């Protein structure tokens, strides 16, 4: 086992996929000679040539639309949107074509494209570089949306994304790129559609994904001091979603906090909270609570820590899980 970073694991996944399958092409802005602004595609052009890994004109709608055309010829495009907010120019191509082509043609055409999106903040990035855009994609039927929180998941989910017959929006938490862990690559972890219990606990379940997973784990550690034994579930696969693992956990613990970095309103966390209370109502001792980014545009670097879900904010929220079985005073009608 060697220590490696998530960035390196993603790079290895791309390289291994390209080595195993000639049809895989990697392209986007600065992914060629530069190896990507985060070096996720480092060395691919040198190793596989500039026909298999190449830079395109600077135009995201073009990149995604070009990938659609390539996929129609049987190729397997893996494209990079350089940063989250720079996927927006491609939104029409993604929502109206990538997501729908299989459906529109009753399966005659498919678009097994991987759209890699480095997303979320916590890295002191300037505006438009730190959006959490996963909900836009998760709300669009026809797309799969996955996001790793660990090094070996980064490798495995990306390999699976490239092999998947459907388009996958692959959300890469930027702040975890240089997190490292022992990992034996090539690793294969749980498949799409499976959530994973990262930490077992008995008192409440923290459900998190992507950049929020380490926050949840840290909060769970800190919660021991307060006498709470928290379970942490890493969603990994937002679409398809693993109801079974999440509901099993919440039924066991009877309490649930959902954590996401994105602004809260109508985000993925809302969906998870809604599902959990639908399915675990009688097991719940308290409402399902949410911790998320504030409902504001992503703030400037010096203020991002106030925006981001912090361990303290998670613990405050856990504290509101009505351990005394008394209603939350905030919501008691005047």
């Amino acid at each position, binding site marked *: 086992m060697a220590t490696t970073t998530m960035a390196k694991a993603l790079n290895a996944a791309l390289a291994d996929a390209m080595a195993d399958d000639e049809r895989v092409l990697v392209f986007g802005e600065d992914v060629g000679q530069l190896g990507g602004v985060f070096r996720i595609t480092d060395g691919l052009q040198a190793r596989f040539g500039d*026909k298999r890994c*190449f830079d*395109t*004109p600077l*135009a995201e*709608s*073009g990149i*995604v*639309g*070009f*990938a*659609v*055309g*390539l*996929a*129609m*010829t*049987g*190729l397997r495009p893996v494209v990079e949107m350089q940063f989250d907010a720079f996927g927006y*120019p491609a939104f*029409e*191509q993604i929502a*109206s*074509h990538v997501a*729908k*082509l*299989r*459906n*529109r*043609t*009753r*399966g*005659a*055409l*498919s678009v097994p494209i991987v759209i890699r999106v480095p997303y979320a903040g916590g890295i002191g990035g300037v505006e438009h570089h730190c959006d959490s855009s996963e909900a836009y994609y998760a709300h669009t*039927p*026809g797309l*799969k949306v996955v996001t790793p929180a660990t090094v070996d998941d980064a490798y495995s989910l990306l390999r699976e994304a490239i092999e*998947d*017959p*459907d388009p996958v929006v692959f959300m890469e938490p930027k702040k975890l790129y240089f997190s490292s862990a022992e990992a034996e690559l090539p690793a294969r972890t749980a498949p799409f*559609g499976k959530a994973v219990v990262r930490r077992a606990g008995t008192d409440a379940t923290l459900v998190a994904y992507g950049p929020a997973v380490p926050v949840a784990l840290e909060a769970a550690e800190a919660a021991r001091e307060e006498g709470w034994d928290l379970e942490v579930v890493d969603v990994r696969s937002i*679409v*398809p*979603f*693993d*109801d*079974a693992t999440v509901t099993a956990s919440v039924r066991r613990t009877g309490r649930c906090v959902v954590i996401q970095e994105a602004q809260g309103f109508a985000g993925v966390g809302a969906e998870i909270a809604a599902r959990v209370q639908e399915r675990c109502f009688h097991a719940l001792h308290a409402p399902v609570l949410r911790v998320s980014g504030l409902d504001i545009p992503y703030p400037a670097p010096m203020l991002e820590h106030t925006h981001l879900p912090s361990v303290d904010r998670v613990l405050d929220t856990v504290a509101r899980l009505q351990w005394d079985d008394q209603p939350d005073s905030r919501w008691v009608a005047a």
Partner: protein
Amino acid sequence: MTTTPQAVRRASPRSRRPADAPVATAAAPVADPSAGLLPATEPVRLLDPSGTPLPARDDYPEPPVAELRELYRRMVVGRRFDIQATALTKQGKLAVYPSSRGQEACQVGAVLALREGDWVFPTYRESMALTARGIDPVEVLTLLRGDWHCGYDPAAMRTAPQCTPLATQCVHAAGLAYGEAYQGRDTVALAFIGDGATSEGDFHEGLNFAAVFKAPVVFFVQNNKYAISVPLSRQTAAPSLAYKGVGYGVPSEQVDGNDPVAVLAVLTRAVQHARSGRGPFLIEAHTYRMEAHTNADDATRYRDGAEVDAWRDRDPVARLETYLRERGELDDAAVAAIAEQAEAYAADLRERMHDKPAVDPMSLFDHVYAEPTPQLVEQREQVRAELAADSDQEGAR
């Protein structure tokens, strides 16, 4: 008896071209860097509006007469189809129909210039192009009848689903053409686009990707003067839409879109250009949408009858007929035979469109993903239960 026009029989698309599709580099300024890129100032025209041939041109030799006869035949069938489809809207058999009457030369000419293995990227308006391509007319109308989105098999017909989000197909065509070349096939992609849609960002990105990757795409703008109600003067201040090519390093040409001979000649050369590895080509065809945008539109709100009437005199079908008759390539009997074919085609369509098709609601879940997600499986069970309850209720009555 099949009334579907035969697909053109030409060489198969699989071929010998090497897999390296070189990437263009921006040339350093030279004496006249736009040489060969700008269109001629006047649209190419080989027949005058009355059908009289104009002086022959070396650059655009007249297509073989057999092709012109086939062009005529498909235009006649296409027009008959178009009239039939409009009639079907009145009978409530079609939800909506965007007629392409007046654009027969463009729609059929473009398709005839292609090989069977080439790809077409049509918009919602290209119904006649699709019938000319040999797609079953019932399948062409699936979208507009409303039983499913795309009625034909795009892979089998080498024809993308008709594209509604304007201009988005331009980048698909670039990607497909590049992907085919990358895999050593000499496929050409032809992207149809309207005058209005050239204002969209994806037109720009599609042309640019095709040019930079030297992808064999023909971008074929049918400038029918309107985008729904909006006249061309609101879309551009350019001398003509063909002048957009030079900004991408893409050669371009204008053509009289109601001159079927010129359309076929210009398209044929553009397709050759693309197939020979010289990258994309842009064509602007000047034509006119004789009907409203769709049957649901009221064109009298934004254009006057005199304008429409003026274009009646430039009818592409009559023009080609006159020419072929003058050349002795068409006589009353042949015209009548083709008209009969067209009638049979329409009658067959009418008949097959008579009954509402059976559509299975459970199929809604089949093609969202290769395999339905657990969430969709749940929803499918819910719908199945609802349908069962409905039919129980009906049974109980």
